[in-house]
């Protein structure tokens, strides 16, 4: 495969996404916007100073489990469905180029763009942690880097999942409702359904939270927390969590690629 060609195709997919203003505006509001609003709210509530670790943990959770994934899903869905929705896919398929390649180049383009938003949102909380830790110690650089990496992992996973489901369904509305509905409502219910035991390990957010650098929010380790952000931490082996995450990336991707390759257009 020609590297220049792949780079060009990813560039073209990036172009389609970044020029779609509604998606960009919504993704910016869900990431940077909500992060800034949350920090303003929680700092105002606590006299404009909070432990740096808590601000960082809240910001990380917000971008890795709550609003960041919504931005990622939005971008991923748009990447998955835009060619079909605009009836342009058949023109791309008629070039003779591999349809699987057409699918595969959507993924890095969407992930790159989604990362811009969620990492910018994470940067807002990091900046707040540095600026408003009061008399307490500032944020630990190692934790900042680990938290940023975890946000990037969550973003990449959720974006890829959305690209796959979008390519599979061909419908933005179905994809958004299904993926966001699963990530918010269904995941929340499953998290508190303790009777399910280890079955809950299969839930993506629970597997992702296994690698979240922060401890559980709202515990005595994090005094003063608003306790508004549950981070879905359930004790589980790291290897299992990694396998679950890989499965959540691979299964929708394979299905999306298969549908892209076999779709009658």
């Amino acid at each position, binding site marked *: 495969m020609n590297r220049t060609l792949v780079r*060009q195709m990813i560039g073209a997919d990036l*172009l389609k996404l970044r020029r779609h203003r509604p998606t960009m505006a919504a993704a910016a509001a869900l990431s940077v916007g909500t992060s800034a609003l949350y920090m303003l709210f929680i700092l105002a509530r606590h006299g404009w100073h909070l432990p740096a670790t808590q601000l960082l943990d809240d910001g990380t959770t917000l971008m890795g489990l709550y609003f960041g994934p919504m931005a990622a899903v939005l971008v991923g869905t748009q990447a998955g469905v835009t060619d079909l929705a*605009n009836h*342009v896919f*058949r*023109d791309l398929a008629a*070039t*003779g180029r591999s349809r699987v390649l057409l699918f595969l180049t959507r993924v890095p383009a969407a992930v790159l763009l989604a990362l811009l938003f969620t990492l910018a949102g994470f940067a807002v909380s990091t900046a707040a942690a540095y600026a408003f830790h009061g008399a307490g110690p500032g944020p630990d650089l190692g934790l900042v880097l680990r938290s940023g990496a975890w946000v990037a992992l969550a973003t990449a996973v959720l974006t890829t999942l959305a690209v796959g489901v979008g390519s599979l369904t061909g419908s933005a509305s179905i994809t958004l409702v299904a993926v966001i509905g699963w990530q918010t409502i269904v995941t929340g219910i499953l998290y508190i359904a303790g009777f399910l035991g280890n079955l809950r390990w299969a839930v993506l957010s629970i597997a992702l939270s296994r690698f979240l650098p922060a401890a559980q929010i709202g515990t005595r380790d994090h005094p003063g927390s608003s306790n508004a952000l549950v981070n879905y931490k359930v004790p589980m082996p790291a290897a299992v969590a990694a396998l679950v995450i890989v499965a959540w990336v691979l299964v929708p991707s394979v299905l999306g690629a298969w549908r892209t390759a076999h779709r*009658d*257009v």
Partner: protein
Amino acid sequence: MTTATPLIHLRGVSKSYGPRTAVSDLSLDVPAGCAYGFLGHNGAGKTTVIRMLLGLTPPDAGTVHLDGHPVDSDRLAALGRVGAIVEEPRFHPHLTGWENLRVVAAVRGPQALRRIGPALERVGLADRARDRVATYSQGMRQRLGIARCLLVDPKLIVLDEPTNGLDPGGILQLRQLVAAFVAEGRTVFVSSHVLDEIERVCQYVAVIDRGRLVAEGPVAELVGGSATEYDLVCRDQQAALTVLSTHPAVTSAAPSGGAIRVTLGDPRAGTGLVTWLVRSGVDVVSLTPVRHSLEDRFLSLTSRVGDQHA
């Protein structure tokens, strides 16, 4: 067809959607360097054939070759120099004309990227290239679709109902572009039910009806003079009718406008008809073979006048 290696080569191609047969055992050879009309009513199977040509949907049976390459197993080679507009040209409305071409050029390869500017110039859209396609008229979108075809320096351009939604100026421009492409040695495969356009633009034509090929050949042959029907103009029509009724090869003779429409049972009888009429005392002014329009031929071949097809 006369060429040894046709640019489009279909053999025994069939396609069904559930119980409905869209295309049945279709074989077609399209020579290189011509404008080839593909005629049929709405729903006759034209777009299905084009979609199979472009590898957008696989045939249930048969083989499709473009420029000698099988579309199913060697897609890139088969479609690498094919530009196409299927049904109607569609674009990302939020992108500019230039950006839309860039999206396709990126998939085609680096050379296609360099052709964006010249292609836009060629179709007269260079000055609107930086405007969003959402602001384009139907005619401009059609031209942008043709510019998209030109990104690959195409050997074959496939146009599906290209005059749909175009005003007379747009149709004229399209006709000129097709003629220019053929003059450059490209092949243009035009699917349409606008018979007049096909007759003006194409050198070859195929007629498809209910998924089956019912006629194929040079347009001139298809609409050319009839060997069995003649219009006879003479000074005394009544006398001529009487004489004609005695000719053994004449199956019918009836006034038609200012002439007599003569139908012969044997096409070979046409050559001696004038001599025979003159010897029989008819003062012949002219005897001309009846020339059918493509519309006449199309309707006689498809026999679906007044049908409403989805």
